[in-house]
């Protein structure tokens, strides 16, 4: 079953590259995305399958990253129908193939039990997303793609160096070493401290670049600001979560080697820097797609900040992984609709969305409330759990206070930018705009899921998060 999950998108990509009509390519992507989701749900109850000599297996942490990813791919596969019909005419051959390969590489990353294999998977995901970013073939998109490639590649090269350092740290007296996560966290392998420290810093920097943590976030506003919004949403909701998985694994290894203090202080610091940078650039932002990119920097900051506060913080972060994916599914898809309806990504150019495009306007408002962490949306719960962990586990009150302060600034900045887009008076003609069902239903489904997660976390999910957090906490 796991093998099918991994190979299905690869085979489908090969078909998409062959001479088939564009319409068939999109239907193929939809079919694969839903089959993937069904398989992922099927794996939920029996995660013990191993493949390829133990290199590939889905543990609790991997499943928690895989599930929302699969759901987001399915939602966006539906959404793309309406989006592509209204986008400029251009062959979908490379686009659909790249989407499928992205899904394959991210699935492999989520299921990697070996730090080297994980690196290969994540690097592949970077490369196959380049054609997605460049889909519209504009000069600005080209600039964004270049930055994404060069910054991402250098970042991920640092992660590779960190992976090598980790293997050096794990070398025993007979010269043997391992990069299997289960070996590195079993407590049987002695890890040399200086190399482990260097490895953690490099892995955090490297995978942090892929996540878009400040100050390595330079590519993010450009890439998300120029990519087709469904692609930006897909990357912000899935690829960044997978990169976070790399940081999670590195932290897990540090925790089991008794170096949790060292790891935590760096995670908290980087989380706060990201929140600060996001707050600075969200306030007064003039472009709503770049605004959402900085909101993604914020969410990544929350993820690593939470990871710095023990088992409880890790629980919050793991829940936040799911919320982050859902949230990107709401907001970027709403942004895609607005871009196509109003023809601009300037905040000032969009007004009265609630009246002219009622469904998109409502989704935008729901997405805003979900993104800033208002109850009863799921993000409120995960951000609150992280806050409690920071207050309970922190040696000083400063991190928690700063966290809350930055979130408050971001809350205001987002509301000031987005509320006038939804309400406000439209200066141009007030004729209602046409909204195809395929561009409305997926973000609505994500919004409902975010709402449900805010009211109650289903029992199996809670159990999975608990076991994953214990696995991470070293206890």
């Amino acid at each position, binding site marked *: 079953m796991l093998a099918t999950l991994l190979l299905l998108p690869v085979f489908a990509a090969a078909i998409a590259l062959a001479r088939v009509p564009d319409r068939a390519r999109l239907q193929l992507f939809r079919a694969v995305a839903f089959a993937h989701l069904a398989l992922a749900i099927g794996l939920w109850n029996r995660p013990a399958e191993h493949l390829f000599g133990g290199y590939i297996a889905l543990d609790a942490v991997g499943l928690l990253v895989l599930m929302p990813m699969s759901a987001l791919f399915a939602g966006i596969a539906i959404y793309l129908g309406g989006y592509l019909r209204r986008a400029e005419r251009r062959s979908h051959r490379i686009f659909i193939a790249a989407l499928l390969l992205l899904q394959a590489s991210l699935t492999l990353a989520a299921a990697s039990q*070996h730090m*080297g*294999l994980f*690196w*290969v998977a994540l*690097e*592949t995901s970077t*490369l196959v997303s*380049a054609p997605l970013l*460049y889909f519209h*073939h504009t*000069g*600005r998109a*080209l*600039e*964004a*793609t*270049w*930055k994404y*490639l*060069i910054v991402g*590649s*250098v970042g991920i*090269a640092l992660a*590779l*160096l960190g992976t*090598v*350092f980790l*293997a*050096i740290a794990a*070398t*025993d*007296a007979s*010269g*043997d*070493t391992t*990069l299997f996560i289960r070996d590195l966290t079993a407590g049987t392998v002695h890890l*040399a401290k*200086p*190399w482990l420290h*260097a490895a953690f810093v490099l892995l955090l920097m490297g995978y942090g670049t892929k996540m878009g943590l400040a100050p390595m976030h330079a590519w993010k*506003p*450009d890439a998300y*600001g*120029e990519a087709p919004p469904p692609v930006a949403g897909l990357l912000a909701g899935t690829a960044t979560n997978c990169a976070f998985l790399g940081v999670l694994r590195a932290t897990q290894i540090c925790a089991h080697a008794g170096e949790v203090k060292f790891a935590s202080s760096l995670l908290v610091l980087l989380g706060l820097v990201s929140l600060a940078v996001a707050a600075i*650039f969200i306030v007064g*932002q003039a472009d709503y797609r*770049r605004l959402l990119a900085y909101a993604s920097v914020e969410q990544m900051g929350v993820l690593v900040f939470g990871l710095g506060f023990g088992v409880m913080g890790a629980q919050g972060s793991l829940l936040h992984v799911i919320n982050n994916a859902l949230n990107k599914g709401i907001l970027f898809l709403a942004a895609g609709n607005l871009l196509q309806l109003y023809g601009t990504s300037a905040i000032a150019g969009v007004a009265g969305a609630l009246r002219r495009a009622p469904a998109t306007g409502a989704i935008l408002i729901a997405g805003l409330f979900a993104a800033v962490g208002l109850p009863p949306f799921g993000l409120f719960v995960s951000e609150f759990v992280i806050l409690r962990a920071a207050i309970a586990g922190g040696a000083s009150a400063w991190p928690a206070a700063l966290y809350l302060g930055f979130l408050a600034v971001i809350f205001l900045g987002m509301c000031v930018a987005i509320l006038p887009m939804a309400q406000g008076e439209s200066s141009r003609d007030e004729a209602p705009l046409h909204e195809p069902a395929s561009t409305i239903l997926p973000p609505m489904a994500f919004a409902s899921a975010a709402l449900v997660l805010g009211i109650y976390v289903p029992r199996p999910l809670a159990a999975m998060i608990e076991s994953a957090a214990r696995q991470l906490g070293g206890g």
Partner: protein
Amino acid sequence: MTNVALDIALILALLLGVTSLGTSRIGAAIRYFWMQAAAVAMVPLLIETRSGGLSVHAWVLFAATMVLKVWGVPYFLNRSVREASVRTEVEPLIGFGVSLMLGAGLVGLSFALARQLPLPQRPASDLLIPVAFSLLMIGLLLIVSRSKAVTQVVGYLVMENGIFLFGLLLIDVFPYLIELGVLLDLFVAVFVMGIVIFHINRAFDHIDSHQLDTLKD
């Protein structure tokens, strides 16, 4: 004897790295890179002859590096340069002379840094770690100080050569499917970057990545 050969290969890789900092011609930078990659490709073989027999692993690694880095990557880079008809690096952010001096400083720093990280086991050559650190930093310097997209790719590749040398510390124990995956990813990365460079050239009539600066806050 083989110890000497190993040291010569490492010193050659280091010198070619430093030299690439001082050249203004993009074609020369690419040539220095593939010569460096060839020197680096020899290292796994030389390490193993030192300790006795040659394993299949070392041969596979050697062959893959030769095919992908010494032949494949320069082929794509040269093609991008031809299509973009750029020959020289103009107006680097940091001048060539200053870059060379900085490079020398980075090499010194690398030797100091290597002393700070004691290895669990003595490496095949005492030069391995310092040269690896040097290539890493020289590559980073090339990326940040050059304005042509192709030269930045060369910097990324030099950096990757340094990481490859670190990986050779683990030659006996690292699974080589992973190593091949890494090499293949690198190759595809250069392929994709080559395509992007081609498009940059077509869209802007230059491949000056510092003029790609419309996007900012």
